[in-house]
């Protein structure tokens, strides 16, 4: 039995090794310049996680977004400077009282099933978004009705002034993407399984654990503006984009080195030097990526007292926390902003006099003033993200140094996600915040998000923000300063620092690629 098994298997395996080595050598040899865009080919992307769903209205997850935005489009979307521009909308007009928005849709847009996009599809999609996404729920509180004027025009009537309307319609977090009316209705509140959008790529198939395949949309009608980001001119050069979930970062790097993958996402910082030394690879530091913070439980326990939250902030030394969490300095930045410096319209340095000013005496004094008498505080972190547990290892002794009695609890991510929804189980948890595009979209400003932040001052400021027209840059700047000042006075979350993502792509194969907060493969071509 043994002999019978051995011979044919080995012979076959050896033959295939020989055959394959020829193919791989041939593949490695072919790599023409690539300065002129070339149509065709397949882009192979190694991702770090598999999405739970590809319905972008349903999920806030990055893994969902970076696949879904090739398939789906929204009325408005971000440009390369993180400002909102039209995408499926042609233009929009606001009535003099600021309560009526008339949005003209672009003509000639077709869904991937061939159906033309009309106002009915837009209304059904927006209404579903209004129920599913937190940004949508917030937006719809100000919306009286969304109605059809004609097939190519939609009107949104507001019940009160709400200037972030257009911004929220272009928020990439749980995007207000447009899908056919019947698809939106069939999906209801469940994540949609029919993935039909208007984007430059069509969803082809998804083999869980193996690959997600998108194919070029031959009927795609592109805008012509050079806006970058998620809008403007989009050309689908490659025939296909294949996303492979590859859990191990070493394997992702190995794959992009050999050319099996054209781009690998979220590599660990320790490989940076190796990648820089390889002429075939380009390291892309994603600067608008995430910032880390300690979220306080403001509904239960000692941190209901703002003074203790301030004390925790003064106990922290962000540079040490970031060094432990992320490592080399080129991968992080100490910055007080709720928004990233690249987000020019929103960024402010207000609060810089509080952030990154460790002051142990002040922290101890605040503890005393608040009458803290050694109640144990539970700090939750997760080992599923290395930076997260590493941050806790420095944060815990820093808190202890000023007198907090700390119980450090390390969980797997799903457990942390579940525990943080229960008010009596925790006091602090660590998490990362991906970029927001409007203060009304800052997740922890919402009263229902874990942490349960309620603030009259902030509510007033956000209300004012809602009433300030987008065109009034000076007033918005002033309000943004106030909002961020409140953030540092009330400390719903103690900001630690910004950290950068690391993507690596194969320069021999992938061309035209530009850095953005998540990967995009339109206007990009491959030569294999």
């Amino acid at each position, binding site marked *: 039995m*043994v002999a019978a*098994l*051995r011979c044919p*298997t080995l012979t*076959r*395996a050896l*033959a*295939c*090794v020989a*055959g*394959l*080595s020829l193919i*791989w*050598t041939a593949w*490695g040899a072919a790599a023409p310049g690539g300065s002129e865009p070339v149509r065709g080919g397949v882009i192979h992307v190694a991702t770090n996680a*598999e999405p*739970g*769903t590809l319905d972008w209205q*349903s*999920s*806030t*997850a990055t893994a*969902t977004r970076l696949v879904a935005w090739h398939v789906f489009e929204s009325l408005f979307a971000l440009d390369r400077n993180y400002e909102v521009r039209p995408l499926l909308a042609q233009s929009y007009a606001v009535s003099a009282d600021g309560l009526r928005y008339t949005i003209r849709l672009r003509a000639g847009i077709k869904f991937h099933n061939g159906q033309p996009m009309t106002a009915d599809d837009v209304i059904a999609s927006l209404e579903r978004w209004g129920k*599913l*996404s*937190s940004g949508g*729920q917030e937006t719809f509180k100000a919306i009286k009705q969304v109605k059809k004027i004609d097939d190519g025009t939609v009107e949104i009537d507001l019940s009160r002034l709400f200037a972030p309307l257009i911004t929220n319609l272009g928020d990439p*977090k*749980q995007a207000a993407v447009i899908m056919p009316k019947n698809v939106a209705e069939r999906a209801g509140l*469940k994540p949609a399984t029919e993935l039909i959008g208007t984007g430059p790529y069509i969803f082809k198939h998804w*083999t*869980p*654990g*193996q690959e997600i395949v998108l194919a070029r949309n031959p009927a795609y009608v592109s805008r012509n503006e050079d806006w970058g980001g998620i809008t403007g001119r989009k050309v689908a050069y490659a025939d296909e984009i294949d996303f*492979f979930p*590859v*859990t*191990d970062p*070493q*394997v992702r790097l*190995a*794959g992009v*080195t*050999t050319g*099996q*993958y054209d781009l690998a996402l979220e590599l660990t910082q320790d490989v940076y030097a190796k990648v820089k030394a390889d002429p075939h690879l380009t390291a892309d530091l994603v600067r608008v990526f995430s910032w880390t913070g300690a979220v306080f439980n403001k509904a239960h326990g000692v941190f209901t007292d703002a003074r203790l939250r301030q004390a925790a902030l003064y106990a922290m030394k962000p540079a040490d926390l970031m060094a432990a969490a992320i490592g080399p300095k080129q991968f992080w930045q100490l910055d007080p902003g709720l928004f990233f410096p690249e987000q020019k319209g929103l960024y402010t340095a207000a609060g810089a006099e509080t952030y990154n000013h460790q002051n142990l005496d002040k922290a101890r004094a605040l503890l005393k003033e608040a009458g803290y008498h050694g109640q144990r505080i539970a700090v939750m972190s997760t080992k*599923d993200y290395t930076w997260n547990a590493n941050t806790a290892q420095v944060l815990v002794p820093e808190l202890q140094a000023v007198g907090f009695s700390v119980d450090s609890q390390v969980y*797997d991510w*799903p*457990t942390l*996600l*579940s*525990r943080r*929804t229960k008010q009596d189980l925790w006091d602090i948890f660590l998490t*990362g915040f991906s970029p927001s595009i409007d203060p009304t979209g800052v*997740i922890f400003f*919402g009263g*229902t*998000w*874990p942490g349960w932040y309620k603030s009259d001052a902030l509510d007033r400021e956000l209300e004012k923000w809602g009433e300030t027209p987008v065109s009034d840059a000076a007033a918005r700047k002033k309000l943004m300063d106030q909002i961020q000042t409140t953030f540092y006075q009330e400390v719903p979350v103690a900001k630690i620092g910004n950290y950068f993502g690391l993507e690596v792509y194969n320069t021999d194969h992938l061309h035209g690629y530009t850095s953005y907060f998540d990967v995009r493969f339109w206007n990009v071509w491959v030569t294999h």
Partner: protein
Amino acid sequence: MARYAAGRLAALAPVLLVVGVTAFLLLHLIPGDPASVILGPDASAGQVALLRHTLGLDRPLPVQLVLWFERVLHGDLGDSIFLREPVTRAIWQHLGPTAGLTALAEALALAVAIPSGVLAAWKQHSRFDQGFMLLVLLGVSIPSFWTGLNLIAVFAVALRLLPVAGYVSPSHGVGPWAASLLLPAIALAFTQAGLIARMARDSTIEVLGEDYIRTARGKGAGEAAVLTRHAFRNALIPTVTVVGTSLANLLSGAVVVETVFVLPGVGNLVVQSISRRDYPVIEGVVLFVALVYVLVNLLVDLLYAAIDPRIRY
């Protein structure tokens, strides 16, 4: 023998019942739920509660258990929350890569382990035996992911002979399929070969000390005949036990190796499902693994009788 086999199969029912209920309860006792994983980290409590309700996860645990059990009795393991397909189909689809990997790894392991184990026993205390023991020790001690990463570094990155990771289904050609499985199979075979070879060597040494071997040698049988005809067959029984365990082990999913090499096998399915709290899939896989173990053990017991005519059931 048929009656024995039938009896063993009938005993499957209580085993699966206990395994199923225990798995269900344990899973639901650990915190975490699929809704918050699907919705992503920025979802609000209200959104999570809404999806939990839509998925039926807010019902009392006993009700969920009864509903699940009722379906299982009808042969329906339910639908995966994430994959949106029946659990039985998901397991069946993930079984392909696992079965291929198991077959290749076990074949490689046996091809190396049996002859070298028998030879080492025959040449006990020789240089070959010492070198063999060292390799075996390395095989069982080195974690397979480490072997895997080094195989990738050498054969995929430095020599560019094989793909780094990923699975090619046999429908795309046997060559690419085998190429996608070769490195993970070697990584697994290294450990399995260590276990099997050790057992083959030890049991052969024991058999070689028996009286009937001395008799065979005494009547002038050649060493080759003594080894293959008299010693090998009798030394097989303990070896078959180890091979059976390793087979069941591999078939229930080589979790680490499948993850490193991105093979969409049963091991990968279960790891992914645990981190997503995809309850129906985890429960289905646990039942499946229990089934595999019971069946493989039965097969091993029946093989004993085939190898050694003295064993009768």
